[in-house]
């Protein structure tokens, strides 16, 4: 244990912790401005924004000796007895001078810069800069060039923090970006013929503390101050990266990674980042429909809920396919509803799309081949309620046996390719087929009841990722008019009052399913490791044996 003093506040640093001045100050609640330092990247100490005064406290005499010059806090280890001063006049002057130097050749085209509003240069200039700009420069136009398919570089906005360069070298290991030229001619660039084309390229835009790197997908689509961000979990694959869903007036404009050291650290892949467009796709189905007299006719949600219960009860043996896109809460409620009607109903896991193989980056970040967020969550529920975990193929075999008379199939996939005509034919012999999905597919067209469902941005609940980590999501936008998020429909079918409450549903599920017991207390922001529960169970079993 060591004690570091930051501006007179004593901070305790653990023996095995390797903190720098910025992190030590953060513990004392003091913000040291910085551009180039990032906790996930190596230290270069090139921006000089984090300059602080540093000294040492003599452990025997208690006398503090300061060193005469200022040092970069990011490069100075916070050891026992280290003293940092971050608020002296000297430090303030240093910051103001760094800001002035950066702004000498900055275009100040903030009105058209997408970073404006979340720009470090803007924020720090207001906080630490001088009142007036002494350089007599008018705002100018920054030349731009493509770095790759996803990112554009606005050359003159760059402050040469080299975060993006270090990212491609240390995190993805692809090293596309580099610094060309020297001194004030320095520029970020790619090697000729080798554009920024790795699968995590979007992260350099988040890393960029200024507006130099622009995301082509987000470019000029919205100003950042209009958007509200909602904590979510990426549903692109089973990694379950923590994200912020940023929306304005029920339209999602971008997804950005949210820090979670257990799952995705600070990053997310491009596939997840740009994989939200289906939420606002033109061909999303809206309005429930019933097959009647050779065609599908529009019906009201209120009549659907009443009819479904009655018709399912009349049908006899039921089967339900739980999509790995459902949240734990939704799957639990659907099981409750189906099992409430037929206690011996067949439950199966929906198709789990697998594309290619897992892709692992040098820093450990993995894009999984399994393109669904909640296979583990559904499996946990199926194991509890069904005993055996049936796959979608197994379910189709069950259909061949003709025991099942009515089936409920939940979808929620990003595309409609999770079933084909052959699958649809397997379901043809049923008395009643209920399909919930976002897009029309062969199975959807064969359904007796077509129920438009929600997308990931509209769901409330939690997912279990590949490492058995239960992570909560909040709905960011409202579903399009005519579509009901699955949770809301099940809530209504179970005749619960009011709107769907994921918290209540989760507590109920956690009380009933031992593997989810930990979630009774609620899910922390960084998720809940369900394996901890398993370990504890194993220990109790071992103890009783």
């Amino acid at each position: 244990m060591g004690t570091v003093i930051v501006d007179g506040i004593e901070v305790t640093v653990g023996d095995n912790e390797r903190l720098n001045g910025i992190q030590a100050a953060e513990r004392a609640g003091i913000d040291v401005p910085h551009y180039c330092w990032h906790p996930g990247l190596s230290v270069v100490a090139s921006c000089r924004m984090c300059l602080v005064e540093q000294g040492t406290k003599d452990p025997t005499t208690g006398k503090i000796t300061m060193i005469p010059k200022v040092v970069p806090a990011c490069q100075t280890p916070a050891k026992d007895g280290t003293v940092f001063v971050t608020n002296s006049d000297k430090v303030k002057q240093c910051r103001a001078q760094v800001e002035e130097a950066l702004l000498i050749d900055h275009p100040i085209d903030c009105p058209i810069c997408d970073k404006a509003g979340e720009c470090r240069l803007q924020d720090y200039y207001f906080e630490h800069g001088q009142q007036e700009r002494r350089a007599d420069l008018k705002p100018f136009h920054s030349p731009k060039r493509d770095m790759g398919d996803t990112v554009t570089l606005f050359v003159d906005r760059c402050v040469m923090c080299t975060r993006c360069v270090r990212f491609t070298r240390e995190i993805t290991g692809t090293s596309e970006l580099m610094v060309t030229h020297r001194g004030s001619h320095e520029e970020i660039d790619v090697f000729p013929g080798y554009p920024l084309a790795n699968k995590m390229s979007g992260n350099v835009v988040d890393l960029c503390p200024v507006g130099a790197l622009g995301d082509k997908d987000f470019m000029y689509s919205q100003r950042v101050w209009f958007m509200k961000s909602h904590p979510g979990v990426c549903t692109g694959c089973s990694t379950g990266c923590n994200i912020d869903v940023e929306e304005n007036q029920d339209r999602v404009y971008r997804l950005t990674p949210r820090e979670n050291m257990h799952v995705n650290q600070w990053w997310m892949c491009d596939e997840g980042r740009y994989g939200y467009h289906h939420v606002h796709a033109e061909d999303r189905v809206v309005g429930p429909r019933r097959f009647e007299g050779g065609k599908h006719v529009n019906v009201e949600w209120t009549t659907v809920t009443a009819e479904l219960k009655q018709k399912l009860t009349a049908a006899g043996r039921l089967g339900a396919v739980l999509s790995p896109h459902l949240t734990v809460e939704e799957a639990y409620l659907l099981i409750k509803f189906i099992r409430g009607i037929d206690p011996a109903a067949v439950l199966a896991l929906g198709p789990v799309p697998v594309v290619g193989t897992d892709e692992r980056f040098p820093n450990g970040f993995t894009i999984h081949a399994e393109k669904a967020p909640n296979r583990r969550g559904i499996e946990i529920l199926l194991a509890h309620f069904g005993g055996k975990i049936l796959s979608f193929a197994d379910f189709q075999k069950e259909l061949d046996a003709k025991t099942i008379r009515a089936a409920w199939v939940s979808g929620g996939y990003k595309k409609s390719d999770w079933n084909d005509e052959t699958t649809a034919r397997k379901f043809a012999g049923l008395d009643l087929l209920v399909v919930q999905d976002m897009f029309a597919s062969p199975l959807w067209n064969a359904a007796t009841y077509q129920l438009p469902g929600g997308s990931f941005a509209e769901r409330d609940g939690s997912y279990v990722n590949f490492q058995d980590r239960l992570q909560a999501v909040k709905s960011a936008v409202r579903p399009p008019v005519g579509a009901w998020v699955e949770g809301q429909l099940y809530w209504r079918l179970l005749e619960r009052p009011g709107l769907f409450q994921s918290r209540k549903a989760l507590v109920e599920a956690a009380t009933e399913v031992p593997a989810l017991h930990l979630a009774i207390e609620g899910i922390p922001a960084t998720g809940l490791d369900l394996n901890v529960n398993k370990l504890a169970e194993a220990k109790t079993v071992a103890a009783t044996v």
Partner: protein
Amino acid sequence: MKTDDPSVRWIDEPKLGLTGKMYLPAIIQGLAVTTKHLFGPKMTVSFPEQRPEIGNPLIYRGVHRLNKDEQGRVKCVACFLCATACPAHCIDIIAAPSPWPDRDKYCESFTIDELRCIFCGMCEEACPVDAVELTSMFDLTGRSREEMIFDKEKLLSVYDQTKDAEPMKSRVMGASP
């Protein structure tokens, strides 16, 4: 500003004298003003045959216009600052990369709901490129609500109509061109 601010100067209400307490002198004074205006020059104008005079067009807040630059392109860079400043939320902009090499961003669509607008002039003040300005056109009518939602073309045409009578305010006021 707080009431205990040192720059606040407190003034006591003057005490009423005998004439003040009687009220009658004050009533006579008021009637004298009324009578004077009865016989004085008439201020009323017969609108619309006769147009009232706008005192200072530079500070008048009438219908909006979108200014054009020297090359006849819309000056707006779609920074959304007017929409941000607007207390009535009547400005709606869609931004796009500009088709011109010397500019990055421009407004693909720019609409102002003139019925929603409260003519406070905040948009004009917020604009960093002096693209949106309020003219001294005040007699604004339309046959439907839709007609009163002014789009980019209409706002640019207001500029064409008023540019001769009212040059761009920024230039008159000595700001950047």
